[in-house]
């Protein structure tokens, strides 16, 4: 330093500059001639698109197709007398989600602005449903929403009393998954619903969630196998991962639907859905393995050396020291993987399943709704977008939280 400060300087906070709306517009939209042209072009495009879209939504589109088939979209051809089961499942999930949310947000405000907007939009949507569908559905949904909010408050209280509960959340969700699955599928004292009879969004969610849960352990094993110093195990893992990653998902589903019957003994038959889930699982496991490998490689060597020096055996080093750190590093990537798997379940429509997109195609082939492509696809887009975008937002938040913890 060549200049010296005679007095210890007081570090002032950066000045908060109040930008007037006019100045903001000038800075962000009209700073120079090029920017101005861009703004005008964009405004033109927005006006044109917006006008076209709004006139279509409110005057041209014939929306009857959506409310008339709402049940088909969501639960497909699930037996009507058993409808209480998906409803109960939804209730369980909503309450658990509320509880989780409350426990996670135990030390902050439960409802920030985004959360309130989200809840408000949901409530308005549910109320709006009462007109085209039925008042009962709307009231039921509102009640579930209310339960979820109440559960969030309860969760906050519980979370403040037992802060260690956070580490059990993942396990709890696994339990809820089995309960919900059992409820939908039946068995024990409930009437059984064949897996092949499921359709609609229910099938989409089922295949996506089951596949990701199953692919998780397989993916981790493959990643460890690829890092292993046993050449046979390593080469088998590499071969599996690279072949699966080199093939389009549709060929793997094609194999699962046509090849599996050929390679099984003649008297063994497996449900179509199970075969499709197996295909999705193997596909997703290969990608997951690569993500986990990234995490494994990001752990410095010193960690495993230190663990060995403490006298841990090789499997314990992996399970207790390396994997927890590696998995934590790749949580956002795994969420991304789940989003893409959720989107990929739409491919089941090609091999003849009636998941959300498949059931849309069959609704469109109904003579009453012939040619209503735009309305149905717009509705599908909204559903897929809401699910995926919500997961993407959650992943981004998670990433931010993990980063601050690492600091």
């Amino acid at each position: 330093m060549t200049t010296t400060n005679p007095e210890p300087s007081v570090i002032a906070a950066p000045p908060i500059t109040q930008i007037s709306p006019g100045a903001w517009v000038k800075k962000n939209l009209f700073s120079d001639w090029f920017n101005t042209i861009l703004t005008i072009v964009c405004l033109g495009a927005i006006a044109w698109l917006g006008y076209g879209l709004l006139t279509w939504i409110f005057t041209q589109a014939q929306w009857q197709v959506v409310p008339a088939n709402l049940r088909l979209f969501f639960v497909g051809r699930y037996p009507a007398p058993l409808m209480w089961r998906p409803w109960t499942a939804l209730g369980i999930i909503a309450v658990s989600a509320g509880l989780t949310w409350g426990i996670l947000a135990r030390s902050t405000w439960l409802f920030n602005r985004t959360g309130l907007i989200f809840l408000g939009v949901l409530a308005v949507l549910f109320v709006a449903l009462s007109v085209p569908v039925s008042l009962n559905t709307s009231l039921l949904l509102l009640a579930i929403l209310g339960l979820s909010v109440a559960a969030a408050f309860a969760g906050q209280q519980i979370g403040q009393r037992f802060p260690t509960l956070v580490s059990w959340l993942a396990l709890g969700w696994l339990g809820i998954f089995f309960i919900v699955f059992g409820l939908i599928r039946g068995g024990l004292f409930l009437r059984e619903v064949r897996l092949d009879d499921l359709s609609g969004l229910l099938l989409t969610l089922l295949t996506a969630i089951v596949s990701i849960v199953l692919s998780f352990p397989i993916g981790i094993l493959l990643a460890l196998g690829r890092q292993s110093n046993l050449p046979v195990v390593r080469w088998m893992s590499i071969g599996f991962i690279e072949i699966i990653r080199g093939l389009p998902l549709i060929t793997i589903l094609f194999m699962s639907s046509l090849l599996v019957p050929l390679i099984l003994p003649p008297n063994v038959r497996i449900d179509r859905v199970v075969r499709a889930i197996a295909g999705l699982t193997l596909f997703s496991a290969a990608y997951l393995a690569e993500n986990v490998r990234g995490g494994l490689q990001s752990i410095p060597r010193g960690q495993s050396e230190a663990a060995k020096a403490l006298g841990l055996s090789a499997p314990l080093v992996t399970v207790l020291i390396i994997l927890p750190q590696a998995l934590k590093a790749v949580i956002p990537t795994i969420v991304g993987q789940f989003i893409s798997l959720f989107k990929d379940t739409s491919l089941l429509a090609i091999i003849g399943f009636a998941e959300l997109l498949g059931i849309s195609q069959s609704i469109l082939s109904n003579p009453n709704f012939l040619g209503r492509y735009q309305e149905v696809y717009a509705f599908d887009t909204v559903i897929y977008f809401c699910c995926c975008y919500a997961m993407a937002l959650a992943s981004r938040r998670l990433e931010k939280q993990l980063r601050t913890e690492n600091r």
Partner: protein
Amino acid sequence: MDEKIPFWRDDRVLKIIGQVIAVVVFVTVMLILGSNIARNFQSLGITFGFGFLRRAASFGIGDTPIPYTPSDSYGRAVLVGLVNSLRVMILGIILATVVGIAVGVARLSDNWLLKQIAGIYVELFRNTPLLLQLFCWYFAVFLNLPGDLENPPRLPGPIFLTQRGVDMPWPDGTLQTWLSVAFLLISAVLAFIIWRRRTTAMVQRGESGRSLQMILIGIGVLALLALIFGLQWDRPNLSEGAITDGLNLSPEFGAVLFGLIFYTAAFIAEVVRAGIQSVTKGQWEAARALGLRPTLAMRLVIFPQALRVMIPPLTSEYLNLAKNSSLAIAVGYADVYATSFTTSNQTGRTIEMILILMATYLTINLIISLGMNTFNRSVQMKER
């Protein structure tokens, strides 16, 4: 210390035993599956082999870039599918890169409005399934175009949009066309070399680069002339309710191409944005302090560094595009997967067709990976 370790606790022995077990399990499973296949083949009365590819295919294909009739062989049908696939992949990769870079740069624009529009586009297209987008393009866009050919909507430079696809001008394919194409290629290479020399001269020696700029403009004018008059454009003609001449792109091809471009471009845009943002602000400031204009700073300092970060994820996007092109079957575009699927259905040769498909897609992926890895090596930092 000479106490011997029992072999069941000896790490070296355990490793070998583990591997032997892995091999044995693998081989046993393969043998069981193989014998099942053999038994199932026997009960179906078919033998393994690729001879069936020579039999007449007897199914029609909509898009035939190479001559094909239903009396041609299955092998020929799969080959037509392969050409169709490659057509979509190559065009898709090029156009998705262009759109993706444009959107990625737009997401970093100073203009708030443009940034928001690019952001909405990226989120919308990344968060909906490609298959849904393909259906939208095909059923809701291309098949929704006016069906009557009396007065179809036309874009500038006679391009017609109708239910039978896009009709647009296309070079005629005479000798003059090919000469012009050769001229255009040579002038492009020449222009690139001169442009590089001009940049070097301007940056390293501080020259104005005027004279070389004149040469560049000259080449540009000549190339433009060759493009307009030399290629012998064959324009589509609208006469008596039918469109003749020109190039017709089927609605299936259009839907697949557009779907792949706009889906992949959304991902490429994120790659580009992350790449440019990964270059630290200091690099910008240093480049500006050296007196480089913003465009030059972008081109010479920021972009080369961003490219190093961008290429590996870009490669995987290209691979995804190539693999996703197999969704073409959903809208009835006869790509290699669709033709193989039909062949397998007609002949019952599932295993053979799966092997062919695997070989095809793995080869295509390998070629893309090799190409991109070579490119990657050429842009990586040259260290000691």
